[in-house]
């Protein structure tokens, strides 16, 4: 079985897996990084979002063989090593921006990806950046508020 070295949350992981295994399964099943969630396996809902070189991307259809040396960040890797939350995480807690929270990983990662590119997004830019992320509980308005809160203190070097 082929072997892959993956750069995840600033750590190198060696995994042995079939080449077509999607990154999501490598993260959850092989490495027990459970921040990214399985929602559809079809790249339609965003629950499995990770950051690939700083940009939010779904991981459920991305074969492990295609990742190469891209820098992967999962929800687990957002907080600092001392445990201090990323401003986006802090804002989600402050605004109580969740109900069941299953989609929350995708929302947080999409928000971080957005702020990395555009540290001062307006309402329409936030909505467009999250357009591919589904939430069934209807926490959207709180999530938009949380991203606006986070943008006030976001510094680009954070992630």
């Amino acid at each position: 079985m082929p072997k892959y070295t993956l750069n995840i949350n600033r750590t190198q992981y060696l995994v042995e897996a079939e080449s077509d295994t999607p990154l999501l399964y490598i993260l959850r099943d092989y490495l027990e990084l459970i921040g990214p969630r399985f929602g559809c396996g079809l790249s339609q809902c965003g629950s499995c979002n990770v950051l690939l070189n700083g940009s939010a991307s779904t991981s459920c259809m991305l074969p492990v063989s295609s990742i190469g040396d891209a820098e992967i960040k999962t929800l687990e890797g957002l907080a600092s090593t001392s445990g201090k939350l990323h401003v986006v995480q802090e804002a989600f807690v402050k605004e109580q921006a969740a109900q069941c929270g299953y989609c929350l990983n995708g929302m947080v990662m999409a928000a971080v990806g957005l702020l990395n590119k555009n540290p001062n997004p307006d309402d329409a830019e936030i909505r467009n950046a999250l357009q591919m992320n589904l939430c069934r509980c209807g926490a959207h308005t709180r999530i938009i508020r949380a991203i606006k809160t986070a943008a006030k203190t976001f510094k680009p070097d954070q992630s």
Partner: protein
Amino acid sequence: MIESPSQSRRKFLKDLGYISIGFSLFSSCLGEEDPIMAARVDYEGGLPGSMRQAKTVNAWLEVLEDGNIRVLSGKVELGQGIGMAIRQVAAEELDMDLDRVEVKLAETGVTPNEGYTGASASIQNSAMSVRYAAATARRELLKLASEKLNTTVDDLWLYNGIVKAKTGNKSLTFAAILEGVQIEKEVTTPIQIKNKKEHRYVGKAVPRMDIEKMVRAEATYIQDLRFPGMVHARVLRPPGYGSKLLHIDENGVKEQVAGLLKMIVDGSFVGVIAQREYQAVKAERYLKDHSEWSASLPFPASEDLYMHIKKIANTPETVRNEGDVDAAAAVGAGTIKACFTKPYIMHGSMGPACGIAMYDGDILHIWSHSQGIYPLRDALSSMLDMDSNKIHIVGVPGAGCYGHSTADDAATDAAILAMEYPEKHVRVQWSRHDEQSWDPYGPAMITEIEASLDEKGRINSWKSDVWTDSHSTRPNKDAGTLLAARYLETPFLMRSRGYLAGGYRNADPYYNIPNLKLNAHYYEGPLRVSSLRSLGSFANIFAVESFMDELAERAGKHPLEFRLAHIDDERAIAVIKKAMELTASQISGEGEGIGHAFMRYKNTDAYTMVAAKVNVDKENGIVRLIKLWAAVDVGEVINLDGIVNQIEGGMIQAASWTLKEQVTFNSNGVTSTDWIKYPILRYTEIPEIEVAIIDRPNEPVCGGGEVPMPPTGAAIANAVYKACGIRVYDLPITAQKIMEASITSQYSK
């Protein structure tokens, strides 16, 4: 799951903004300032239904060795925040800091049997049981301490896990008072409960403690559970309802898929177990392409659905009949009629179902996000022909499910496979395709209304006719309620029809009408159905409140004044007036309209009025939702932000149902099998939201989870009418329907 305290107390209390009663909250060390004890009042009302089978204090709470409290509840966390509400109530009555109270939700043999988590009934049952049990525990702890400290109860303080004499320094911790014994006293009225004016937590917007765990990627959901040696399974479901397995390439899958540990075929139930999760996915995919099945049960053409429903419905039952509708309708200017329809709608959980099971040779252990672990145990006991004492089920949170979805079915799959592959934790994960194809949907409904006005423009007669399928086929002793059981070699077919009465919920308006009749026409339709958030109320209030606007127009009255003229319940009037106030300053521009809808849920519970503002594009009929407002009275509020969150989210979900959602099918089966084929509201379509809660601390508590759904649909329909003059009677309200109606109305002019 046990919620463990994660935020520091100091930070938490700062956020809470609470520091009003006169004792130090930051320490329970002796020698610090003592509290002024909050006043207690005697509660002499009824006890919650959940207490009938769990009458003693220790059924609801335990004192742990460190003096902390563990509350036991038979309800499950589904994202609605019930764990937090229960914790607040217990901490309140026992005057403890919140982080000294943990909540254990749903485990057979451990927590009380509270049936299902549903019907917006968890607060009034579980949280209220905990309130009375905690208050009784307080009284008992004081009594026992007074004996041990040789003083009177009046000479004692009780707070934060200790009981202390007011004079001198004598004190005992809860643990020392009880010496390892739990409080077995039966909870009986009168019960001294805390005066609500002195509440520290209840009624306040206490932040949920689990959201920080979520952002930290800590294991939260059943999908996250990992056990040593756990194996991964998938179930190959038939291509459609009733399909039978004819042939399957068992040898091929073993050759083609690495890591396959076992394949189980029992009749038309096919499961594969693999070392790695993606190997199980690949095995299921291979088998899907390498199996033959008999034809599935035929479905009617989807465009003929409502005709089909009327054709197959039973003779109607009259469920309410007051005055003489027929005689009243014959007087005056005649009746007006309208027919409203609602398609099948799916639960659409973000997290497809998951179940884990392990058979240790004696006990079958199951982890499930089921909404009713005890009824699920009954069903599994019947299916497996196993003593229910040999089945142990642990409730674990799942993604929001909004009713009876597929959780029990995934647990059943795991149970069947674990019995065939013992000693290992077998984890079954459903696919998005199966989640949306085999969901027990909220049933399609028809609500017809015929009413007449008297000479003063008041409603004189009203007749509702509702066509409905069952609104609950939840697990019970009937093993046929479990999907997999129907496909076994010896299949179990569902014997009962489940809960039919949910279909006519709120079809009889909560208005003063002298002649009123309600008929229910039950049908057994083509698609699998069960309970979806608010049951029949969503379709019925869409009809009733759309029709109220039509009647108001006929009577030449303002729609809200018209409603107020038919109601004398002060709490109903208060939410209507509050909603009027919220929207009073709104101006509707060109193509815009504001609509309202009122409901008292089940005609006995929470009150709500929703207002919607929309824009309808005359060129293409596209509806843009601008803003939603809600004025809500759920009686006594437990967690203010919790109820606001539920109402906000519910309005968004209901707006999605109203504007976008419809389960589609052709003659072979369901076709809305993913998020492209079953679109829901996305970010660019999300309206602004404003919620006003009318707190009534002296009224009984009502749940709020289902309350926003029904009036949201009708408020949007009324707003669309105001915006463009087109009334849509058939959900969802789409641009196409508006354009078609617009063309028709132009022809008729």
